[in-house]
């Protein structure tokens, strides 16, 4: 049997995978034509390309996979004609293939409304990786961006413009509100408000008359005679099924596009199937990936003589649009009168939830969640499986359910047939079975059932099912560090303190098994450092340190290291600046001012590190701990010594803080800043702890961070005097060090902390646990035992010996290290 597939998108790929799984490889000959230059990739996560995912990482499978499966894959080669009489397809390259069965998986294209000027430079579509590459190139010369279309794809495109660094971004929608087909008026309005806070301006009820500009776009002219200036435009006004090939071959298509198919996904020619976004089933185009996968399953089954039919698909979705969660499930638009609605709205937090239940209060019909959607999976399952509602259905909506305690009946109540991962159609029963068969972690379940591998939306529920299944077998899953230690970090810290253990080996002997690994070693090393503050490279503990800590420097591309001396508060004398310059010159180091108000020297050979440190120490510097999960920088603004608005001397206070907590090791790195007034030039509210001067003293903010998931710090206490402020910081940091999981920044720790900021405030400010004095005492002990690690290495020949590349040729540097030149300095040679 020879099958030709036209289109190598997500659904075309899934069809190949499913067909091969069902049939013996030798019995089918599979040929695939794809128009795009690369094999099928994850279009659903297209926007993550801007967050650094590469084209390769987005691939569904590599070209080698197709080869291994015996699939002949023709890329960048669109099929141009189908001859149904002769049963052949003709591709652009001239290749002619015969077929027994033909599968059309041509997907859809962006719908471009007929607005004059759409051909101008700077107007883009948003569908393929090539579209993204063109946008990125153009964005270099653009500042402002606009999207036409306020639906799901339009908002994805708006996120892309944000990621590209555009400002003044507008979303133009023809309808009176956003996402008119998925969510209701109120939800739409709230979403619009939230997007506004993120810097996206939404213009509704706007009809674009023309796109202005000579050669390049300059703006949009609307029918109400208003004008919007913009440097680039993305059109995302809907999709248009790619049915041109089918039409030309005389297959039946719908009046508004789409290839007509029956329950078996057969077109009007029974040896030709259509699946995915090009197929029109009962007058409906399914613009989501899960129904497309189901179609692929039905055709693969049909061709393998299994009996299966497509009977439509639920359009429930949960999405993250520009960081805002939006979900709709069941029928989100049940007619009033046939249902009773419960609505929960918190404008301040930007949360809107609505559920519709039958008038007798017995069953859930559908609903909408905006701003907070953790109950989505459970609610969807409740609709789908017609589960009985709790006596007070409103509890389904109230507040975010605590982690691990799902709202409503919980996963236990679900029947085995309940579909958990709709992308890969994996049922609850299949997951339970796999867990029972010994696949007890989420990673293993992903591998053997494929659940959670596509959109990932079901991940929390899959984890819940794993947990409850294990529990039902009498196994308890605890938040343990790794296979070598069956304790949480907090438990480990207590055990190590009680037994006064001082080295990784002792800890392993007492509480662990095996030899440890790259997860537990640094975690234990960090606990030891937080408890005793011994030199971290002391014998036995050196090899337990994370690689950067082991050499007291960050390893960089090419295998050299960076050196960051501490410059407290960012204040430095001209003499010290000169000293840094001289060292950099002598050892040929690349120098750069960091984002943390200090200077980084890059490209140091391992064996030069102690020599460089020695010269820096002689000039009055010490380690800046840029490599450690430890206090990094305390940034400062110039403050009252020079600034006309400064209320207090923020530099002096920042230096005092940095010198107090320098070298303090913690579950993750800690950053701080001190601003001299509310203008906040030191960005204290983006730090693990930040301090802002007020008329009366200092405001202390905690648990903020930048990084990939930025979060603002929250006010812990206001108008503190300098001493009290430090006492609160002592307590706060020590409490964090003692209770956080490994590699958890303060923001994430707070998010998981039961009771949140109110509880934390009680512990730190009100001393509700009565441990305030103890925490302060422990911190003081760490402060008093501080020593510069660099100095200890420089002064200890035994430790210094570790700083050479070859054990049998200590004088020699790694000959494979290569540099290139850039703007008169060196840079690491490119990765190979």
């Amino acid at each position, binding site marked *: 049997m020879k099958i030709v597939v036209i289109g190598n998108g997500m659904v075309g790929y899934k069809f190949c995978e499913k067909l091969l799984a069902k049939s013996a490889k030798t019995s089918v000959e599979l040929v695939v034509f794809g128009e795009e230059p690369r094999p099928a990739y994850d279009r659903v996560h297209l926007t993550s390309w801007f967050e650094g995912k590469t084209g390769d990482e987005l691939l569904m499978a590599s070209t080698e996979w197709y080869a291994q499966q015996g699939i002949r894959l023709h890329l960048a080669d669109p099929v141009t004609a189908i001859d149904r009489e002769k049963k052949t397809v003709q591709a652009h390259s001239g290749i002619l293939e015969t077929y027994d069965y033909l599968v059309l998986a041509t997907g859809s294209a962006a719908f471009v409304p007929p607005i004059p000027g759409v051909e101008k430079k700077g107007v883009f579509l948003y569908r393929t990786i090539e579209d993204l590459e063109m946008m990125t190139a153009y964005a270099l010369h653009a500042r402002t961006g606009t999207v036409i279309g306020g639906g799901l794809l339009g908002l994805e495109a708006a996120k892309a413009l944000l990621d590209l660094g555009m400002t003044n971004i507008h979303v133009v929608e023809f309808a009176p509100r956003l996402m008119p087909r998925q969510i209701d008026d109120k939800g739409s309005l709230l979403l619009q408000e939230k997007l506004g806070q993120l810097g996206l301006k939404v213009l509704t009820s706007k009809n674009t008359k023309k796109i202005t500009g000579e050669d390049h776009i300059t703006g949009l002219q609307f029918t109400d005679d208003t004008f919007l200036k913009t440097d680039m435009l993305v059109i995302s006004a809907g999709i248009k099924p790619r049915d041109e090939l089918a039409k030309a071959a005389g297959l039946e298509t719908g009046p508004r596009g789409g290839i007509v198919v029956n329950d078996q996904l057969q077109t009007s020619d029974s040896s030709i199937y259509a699946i995915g976004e090009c197929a029109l089933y009962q007058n409906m185009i399914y613009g989501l990936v899960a129904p497309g996968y189901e179609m692929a399953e039905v055709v693969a089954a049909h061709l393998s003589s299994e009996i299966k039919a497509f009977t439509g698909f639920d359009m429930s979705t949960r999405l993250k649009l520009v960081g805002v969660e939006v979900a709709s499930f069941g029928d989100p638009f049940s007619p009033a009168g046939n249902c009773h609605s419960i609505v929960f709205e918190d404008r301040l937090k930007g949360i809107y939830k609505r559920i519709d239940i039958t008038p007798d209060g017995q069953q859930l019909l559908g609903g909408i969640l905006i701003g907070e959607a953790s109950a989505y999976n459970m609610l969807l399952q409740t609709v789908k499986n017609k589960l009985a509602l709790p006596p007070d259905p409103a509890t389904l909506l109230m507040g975010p359910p605590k982690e691990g305690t799902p709202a409503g009946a919980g996963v236990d109540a679900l029947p085995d047939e309940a579909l958990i991962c709709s992308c890969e159609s994996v049922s609850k029963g299949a997951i339970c079975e796999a867990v029972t068969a010994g696949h007890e972690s989420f990673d293993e379940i992903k591998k053997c059932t494929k659940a959670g591998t596509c959109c990932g939306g079901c991940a929390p529920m899959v984890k819940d099912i794993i947990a409850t299944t294990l529990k039902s077998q009498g196994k308890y899953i605890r938040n343990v560090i790794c*296979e*070598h230690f069956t304790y949480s970090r907090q438990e480990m810290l207590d055990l190590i303190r009680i037994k006064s253990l001082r080295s990784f*080996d002792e800890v*392993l002997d007492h509480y662990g098994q*095996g*030899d*440890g*690994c*790259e997860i*537990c*070693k*640094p975690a234990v090393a960090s606990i030891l450092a937080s408890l005793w503050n011994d030199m971290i490279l002391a*014998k*036995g503990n*050196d*090899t*337990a340190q*994370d*690689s*950067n800590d*082991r*050499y007291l420097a960050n*390893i960089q591309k*090419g*295998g050299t290291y960076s050196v960051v001396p501490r410059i407290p508060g960012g204040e430095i004398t001209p003499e010290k600046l000169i000293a840094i310059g001289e060292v950099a010159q002598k050892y040929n180091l690349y120098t750069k001012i960091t984002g943390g108000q200090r200077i980084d020297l890059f490209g140091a050979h391992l064996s030069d590190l102690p020599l460089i440190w020695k010269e820096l120490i002689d000039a009055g510097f010490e380690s800046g701990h840029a490599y450690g999960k430890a206090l990094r920088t305390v940034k400062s603004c110039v403050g009252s010594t020079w600034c006309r608005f400064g209320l207090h001397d923020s530099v002096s206070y920042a230096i005092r803080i940095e010198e107090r907590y320098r070298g303090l090791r913690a579950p993750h790195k800690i950053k701080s800043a001190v601003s001299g007034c509310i203008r906040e030039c030191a960005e204290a509210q983006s730090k693990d702890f930040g301090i802002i001067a007020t008329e009366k003293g200092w405001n202390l903010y905690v648990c903020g961070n930048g990084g990939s998931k930025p979060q603002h710090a929250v006010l812990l206490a206001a108008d503190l005097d300098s001493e009290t402020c430090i006492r609160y910081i002592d307590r706060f940091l020590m409490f964090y060090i003692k209770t956080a999981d490994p590699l958890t920044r303060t923001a994430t720790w707070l998010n998981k902390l039961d009771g949140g900021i109110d509880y934390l405030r009680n512990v730190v400010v009100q001393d509700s646990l009565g441990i305030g004095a103890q925490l302060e005492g422990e911190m003081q002990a760490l402060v008093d035992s501080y020593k510069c690690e660099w100095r200890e290495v420089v002064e200890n020949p035994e430790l210094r010996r*570790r700083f050479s*590349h*070859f*054990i*049998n*040729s200590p004088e*020699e540097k*790694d000959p*494979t*290290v290569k540099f290139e030149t850039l703007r008169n300095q060196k840079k690491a040679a490119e*990765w*190979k």
Partner: protein
Amino acid sequence: MSISSTTIHWFLACKASDVPHNGGVCVKYGEEQIALFYFARKDQWYATQNLCPHRKQMALSRGMTGTVKDEPKVACPFHKKTFSLLDGRCLSDEGECALTVYPVRVTDGLVYIGVSEETAMVAV
């Protein structure tokens, strides 16, 4: 069963006491770099190429050692890909190339690494 016909050439790498417990060092052998690891808890030695195949970085000797289900492994300091020290295969990424592994012998406090004759010819 097959009998290997390559001869192994043992060269002196360093003193056993030069190698940190539960860690690694890099040994120069002609133009080659070999990572040598000592698992002190079990008194076991392993050696692999020093080059991490992922981004071609000479770094494995500076990686963290450990075990997974009792199989000894090393994690590259760059992106934490882990490799078995028994057969060199990549444990964290099926698609990644495997490391070359070398036999190690310790006599009288001296560590010898075995390289097959061909390698020896090229290297010396």
